[in-house]
């Protein structure tokens, strides 16, 4: 990276469309390194990304990059590389032509050398001579990243970069983004998949229903999540007896008999429950047939974080 490090700051940013509030009073500071913007679909991530990249005006609050507003400020794109979720509609161009066009639009002094350099970085030198409409999803993502990086920006923003990308390509992209973060770039990516964010981001911002729900490193977010009440579905040799046994335990908040057999159990203290359950069952001479979490969806995790 050639220039100084950059910081993106959102101060009390809200955005509404008519009566619908898409983003509600969000304040964030995103600095160098990899940051994950995590939230379920419809949480307002795309709206936030659009405001951070200068493609949407905040209804209230400010979005600034190194102190300058991003909206209607085309010079900011000298420091920003943007990888939109939208598909490329330039399929009639080769990868090399597309990246070169981006270099030309930035008026780089040696656009040809910059193009070849960045094609090497994203490992696309060999297929760069082919038309982009022949590329796989992963290759298109890499070409989009090359186009966003060709001018060596301090900030790289990617909207759902791993959507539809196969696991091998995903690993490759993650390595690339990690490397870019280690170089001191501010790398921000949005995702609705917890595992993606966990594997890549040093810092995480969680957005739910347009609100900023949590912020911190993954350990902090994970702790918040493991502290929450968890629901399990359990089947055993005697569900009624097990229900009576469980409700007596302080780590269990609620037990419900399911009409089709088995129990729904809501657990407050996951650690005590995990250690105690086999012991309690053995003492009462009960056999456990099945134990599975019933609300592990990300939405339930987010709902919990928001309620805190």
């Amino acid at each position, binding site marked *: 990276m050639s220039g100084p490090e950059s910081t993106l700051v959102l101060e009390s940013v809200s955005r509404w469309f008519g009566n619908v509030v898409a983003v509600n009073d969000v304040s964030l500071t995103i600095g160098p390194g990899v940051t994950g913007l995590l939230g379920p679909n419809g949480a307002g991530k795309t709206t936030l990304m659009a405001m951070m990249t200068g493609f*949407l005006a905040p209804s209230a609050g400010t979005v600034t990059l190194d102190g300058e507003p991003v909206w209607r400020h085309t*010079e900011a*794109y000298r420091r920003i590389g943007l990888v939109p979720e939208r598909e490329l509609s330039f399929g009639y161009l080769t990868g090399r032509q597309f990246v070169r066009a*981006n270099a030309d*639009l930035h008026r780089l002094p040696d656009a040809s050398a910059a193009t070849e350099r960045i094609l090497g970085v994203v490992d696309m030198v060999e297929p760069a001579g082919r038309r982009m409409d022949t590329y796989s999803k992963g290759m298109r993502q890499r070409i989009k990243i090359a186009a966003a990086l060709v001018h060596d920006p301090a900030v790289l923003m990617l909207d759902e970069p791993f959507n539809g990308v196969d696991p091998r390509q995903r690993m490759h992209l993650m390595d690339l983004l990690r490397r870019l973060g280690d170089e001191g770039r501010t790398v921000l990516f949005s995702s609705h998949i917890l595992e993606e964010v966990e594997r890549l981001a040093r810092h995480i911002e969680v957005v739910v229903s347009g609100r900023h729900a949590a912020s911190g490193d993954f350990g902090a977010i994970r702790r918040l999540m493991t502290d929450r009440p968890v629901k399990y579905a359990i089947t055993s040799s005697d569900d009624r007896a097990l229900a009576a046994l469980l409700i007596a335990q302080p780590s269990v908040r609620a037990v419900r008999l399911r009409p089709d057999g088995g129990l729904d159990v809501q657990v407050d203290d996951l650690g005590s429950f995990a250690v105690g359950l086999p012991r309690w069952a053995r003492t009462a001479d009960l056999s456990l047939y099945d134990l599975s979490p019933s609300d592990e969806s990300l939405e339930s995790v987010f709902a919990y974080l928001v309620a805190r």
Partner: protein
Amino acid sequence: MNSTIIKLAAQALLGRRRFWLLLAFPVLLIALTVTVAALTDAEAAWPLLPGLGYPVVLPLVAVLAASSVLGPEVDDGSIVYLLSKPVSRHSVALSKWVVAWAATMLAGALPLYVSALVAGGGDRALAAGLAAVVAGTTYSALFLAVSAVTRHAVIVSLLFVLIWEGLLGNLLSGVAWLSVAQWGLRIGHEISTELPDPTNLPWAIAASLVVTVGGVWFAGDRLRSFTLRGED
């Protein structure tokens, strides 16, 4: 103006199926004129120009050209790849217009002039050619502005041509003052009095200029406010 955007817009225009439609209209016009002139005489082919070439083919070509250089990219949001660059949005709009204008001249005004030459030539042909250059220039800027505003640019532009310029223009003489086609004819009238004289010359020149400059400027202004909205 930005040469990279001009190049990309030209490639986009040439790469779309619409391009063949764009070419079909002028080819049809010239073929018809040549056929009628060959079967009867050149003079008999002339009515094809005020009846078909000028009021239909020219604006259709301008609609297709202007909507092809901007419309699809705005519709699918891929224009974000061009706009996330340190390039003035007005420069993006101007570059797009240059491509739409060149296509309108090549596939609209030039074939019209060629047809006019086939149908007798002389001052009248030159006047028709000039009118087509003026109206084609104005149409391309106007329809570019429409493309920057609505996803239904082709329909809106066609309704303008067919209903405002065609239907109402024939019924109400006052519409001529607000008709791109009539401004072009009035300017062409300076070369040959065989072209009608629907308004006064200063008005025709000023109105054409204002709509052309204003249309390109407005398209750029709309791009400055281009908004990306996700499904959320």
